[in-house]
């Protein structure tokens, strides 16, 4: 009964989405305030129905209702409750449901929080969201229904993929989806603006905080995935350039370009049509990523043919969304003026370089991911494109991007003088060059480059904060008071930028150090044996059998001591065999630290209590995720900038002013 209720809610949601996609939009053309006013309640209704559907599916998981095929395939009565809940999005059907639920949540949030948004804009944004929801709901109902019943009812479920039975993975997909789906707001705003022909600073100001929050979620989602891969897969790496990772990286790269491009559009009313194009691309890449992964086409072109319904639907849907929005763009964009003039040396130019670089990185990832498919499709033979290729391509472009990142905060909008810039930057450049000279004979060249780029970012951003405060300081403020006042006022987006860029520096430090100084050893250890890695002594005390809620495990015990013989940690890596079957799983044991991780993974038992063991020393690996956390914090702070929430009448007038100059007759 409950699953049918969920199914019904899904069908009703589709009906509502159809209304949502049409009536409010039509209302904006025939100036029917009533039709436009439907947008808000429709957004709330859509969210309510999908919440009901999602709750029904969750309920089916919680009571282990194996008459539902999706539950039977992805759950088991022994599964701990947390994983019964996360199993809801553990496979194709449920994750699509989570996707539409989140999209409805974003829509409801826009309806709720954008109180001072003009009715016409809100109606169009909600309508565009409705269109995307129609596509997804049709896809779910016709090809991937999670509520489908199974007969005869199996006595026991097949269990959730053991790899997903992990806390990191329980929250990774929702985070990632929040990011993907969040870009649908930027997309909806862009399409709404194209429909209305009104692309102005106000549009940028409305969409920017939504885009930022989506980007924050995506950043955290990707970081979680990377962290999970590091500790759960037992290989000690944090990024493999796997197609599924790339699928999430592409929207992130374009999204990063987008939030920078928005800055120009909002402040200078320039880059408008480019920003729209980026907003369309970010969401299109989110869709492409989801579907590329979901359709199985990445594994093999032939997998696409195994499920022709889903495959065909995906292709048609992508064609409509991407093709449709690009057509609209091509039709409307030429009428949009390109906006403010800027000189060759200006903040605009530096952000233009940023956008160019991020677009280039996205092209690299897209091309590298699809190249094996292209080769296969054209009969040019089978090739593999792996980390060496991606690393080479990225290391060619990324340093340039980072150098510009350091200069950009010093540049003035519109036009700047070269000599002024030199006056501000010469000593920072000198510091970095000095560090380079100091390091060049001491460390590998890669470390020298990576560390000097990180230092460059840190000192340029430190200096630009100081410079900003200095400017405010002149009259009555001390530096500290100026900082606090700045943070209360409209300075938050500036400090957000600084924190996010510092995050980039931390990330670079982590990547540089861990890729050059990590130590990995594989040894055979008998109980009582010990082995020394990077000054840490790992003493193996043997492995014992133990039983978890739904698995058997061999649990090893290692005592780690440092150079002086002081105790560092007791580590208990496991090798698990889940009752549901499948390959044995490795649970690595890690002693985490800011400066280093000590990492043990059990390999194979070799008889007589001996084990093949992997011992890792991973210096600064935490900086990688710490960097991502800083980036996310920066995004949040920027979003909290007062100008996005100010409701004073003045703040409402200003966008109109900015708008009045931007649309050419």
């Amino acid at each position, binding site marked *: 009964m409950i699953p049918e209720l969920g199914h019904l809610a899904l069908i009703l949601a589709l009906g509502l989405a159809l209304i949502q996609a049409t009536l409010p939009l039509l209302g904006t053309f025939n100036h029917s305030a009533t039709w436009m006013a439907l947008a808000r309640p429709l957004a709330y209704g859509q969210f309510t129905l999908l919440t009901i559907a999602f709750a029904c599916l969750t309920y089916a998981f919680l009571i282990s209702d194996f008459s539902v095929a999706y539950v039977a*395939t992805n759950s088991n009565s022994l599964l701990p409750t947390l994983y019964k809940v996360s199993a809801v999005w553990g*496979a194709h059907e449920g*994750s699509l449901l989570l996707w539409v639920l989140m999209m409805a949540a974003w829509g409801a949030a826009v309806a709720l929080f954008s109180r001072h948004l003009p009715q016409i804009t809100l109606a169009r944004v909600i309508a565009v969201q409705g269109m995307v929801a129609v596509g997804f709901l049709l896809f779910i109902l016709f090809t991937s229904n999670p509520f489908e019943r199974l007969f005869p009812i199996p006595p026991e479920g097949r269990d959730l*993929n053991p*790899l*997903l039975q992990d806390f990191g*993975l329980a929250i*990774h*997909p929702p985070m990632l989806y929040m990011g993907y789906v969040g870009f649908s707001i930027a997309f909806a705003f862009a399409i709404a603006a194209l429909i209305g022909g009104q692309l102005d600073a106000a549009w940028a100001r409305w969409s920017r905080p939504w885009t930022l929050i989506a980007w924050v979620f995506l950043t955290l989602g990707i970081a979680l*995935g990377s962290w999970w891969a590091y500790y*759960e*897969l*037992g*290989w000690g790496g944090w990024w*493999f350039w*796997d197609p*599924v990772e790339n*699928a*999430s990286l592409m929207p992130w790269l374009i999204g990063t370009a987008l939030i920078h491009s928005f800055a120009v559009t909002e*402040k200078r009313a320039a880059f408008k049509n480019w920003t729209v194009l980026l907003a369309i691309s970010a969401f299109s890449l989110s869709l492409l990523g989801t579907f590329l*992964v979901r359709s*199985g086409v990445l*594994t093999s072109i032939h997998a696409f043919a195994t499920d022709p319904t889903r495959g065909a639907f995906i292709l048609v849907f992508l064609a409509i969304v991407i093709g449709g929005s690009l057509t609209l763009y091509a039709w409307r964009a030429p009428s949009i003026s*390109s906006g*403010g*003039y800027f000189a060759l040396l200006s903040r605009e130019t530096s952000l*233009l370089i940023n956008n*160019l670089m991020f*677009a280039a990185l996205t092209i*690299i990832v897209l*091309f590298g991911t699809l*190249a094996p498919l292209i*080769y296969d499709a054209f009969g*040019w*033979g*089978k*090739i*593999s*494109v*792996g980390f060496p*290729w991606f690393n080479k*391509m990225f290391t060619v472009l990324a340093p340039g991007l980072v150098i510009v990142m350091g200069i950009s905060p010093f540049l003035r909008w519109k036009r700047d003088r070269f000599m002024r810039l030199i006056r501000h930057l010469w000593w920072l450049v000198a510091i970095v060059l000095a560090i380079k000279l100091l390091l060049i004979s001491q460390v590998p060249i890669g470390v020298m480059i990576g560390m000097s780029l990180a230092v460059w970012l840190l000192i340029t951003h430190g200096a630009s904060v100081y410079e900003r405060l200095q400017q405010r300081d002149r009259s009555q403020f001390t530096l500290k008071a100026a900082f606090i006042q700045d943070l209360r006022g*409209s300075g938050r987006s500036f400090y957000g930028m600084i924190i996010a860029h510092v995050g980039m520096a931390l990330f670079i430090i982590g990547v540089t150090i861990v890729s050059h100084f990590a130590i990995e050893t*594989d040894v*055979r250890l008998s109980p009582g044996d010990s082995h020394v890695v990077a000054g840490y002594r790992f003493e193996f005390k043997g492995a014992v059998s133990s039983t978890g809620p739904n698995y058997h495990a061999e649990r090893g015990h290692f005592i780690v001591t440092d150079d002086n013989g002081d105790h560092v940690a007791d580590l208990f890596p496991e090798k698990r065999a889940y009752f549901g079957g499948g*390959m044995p*799983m*490795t649970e690595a044991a890690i002693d985490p630290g800011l400066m280093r991780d000590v990492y043990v993974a059990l*390999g*194979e038992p070799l008889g007589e209590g001996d084990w093949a*063991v*992997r011992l890792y020393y991973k210096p600064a690996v935490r900086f990688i995720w710490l960097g991502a956390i800083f980036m996310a914090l920066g995004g949040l702070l920027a979003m909290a900038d*007062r100008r996005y929430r*100010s409701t004073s009448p*003045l703040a409402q007038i*200003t966008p109109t*002013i*900015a708008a*009045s*100059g931007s649309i050419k007759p």
Partner: protein
Amino acid sequence: MIKHRLIRGGAVLIIIGFIHTAALGFTLEQFHFDSAQQETTFRELIGKLRCLVCQNESLAGSQAELAQDLRREVYEMLRAGKSEQEVISFLTTRYGDFILYDPPLKPSTYVLWFGPIILISIAAVFMLRLLLRGRSPLNRNDALDPQEQQRLNQLLAATIADPNNPTASSTIAEKSHP
């Protein structure tokens, strides 16, 4: 070719590719090398070679039987004094370029190596044209028209009345900047 499918049923977005890297079965501890240099070469090499039957895993990361055999084979070739290049050319003759995560530059991989450069150039030209269109000095007319000027005056008056609104005042300042 056999598809070595460890786990079916699909997983969530980002994870699928990792699934096959999951279970560990490293038996690398059995290998003994003449020198530290040789061990480094071995480790780097098996990291750059693909396990042919896995979804996306290196020889270093996989525990599939074929990967174990190939690891042994690479090990023995290195011990027999073959160079890294000799090992690679032996493996590619037998298995094709598919085994290499780092495809060499040669006519058949020109598309792979130069494709992005060409695409990026096209995108850059397109983007620059889009952004710099109308950037000619003729469009440098930043002066406010009378209507805008009037609005500005209104707002400036309002700002003076409400000096605590830095948002509004900064926006106006930008716009009024000549």
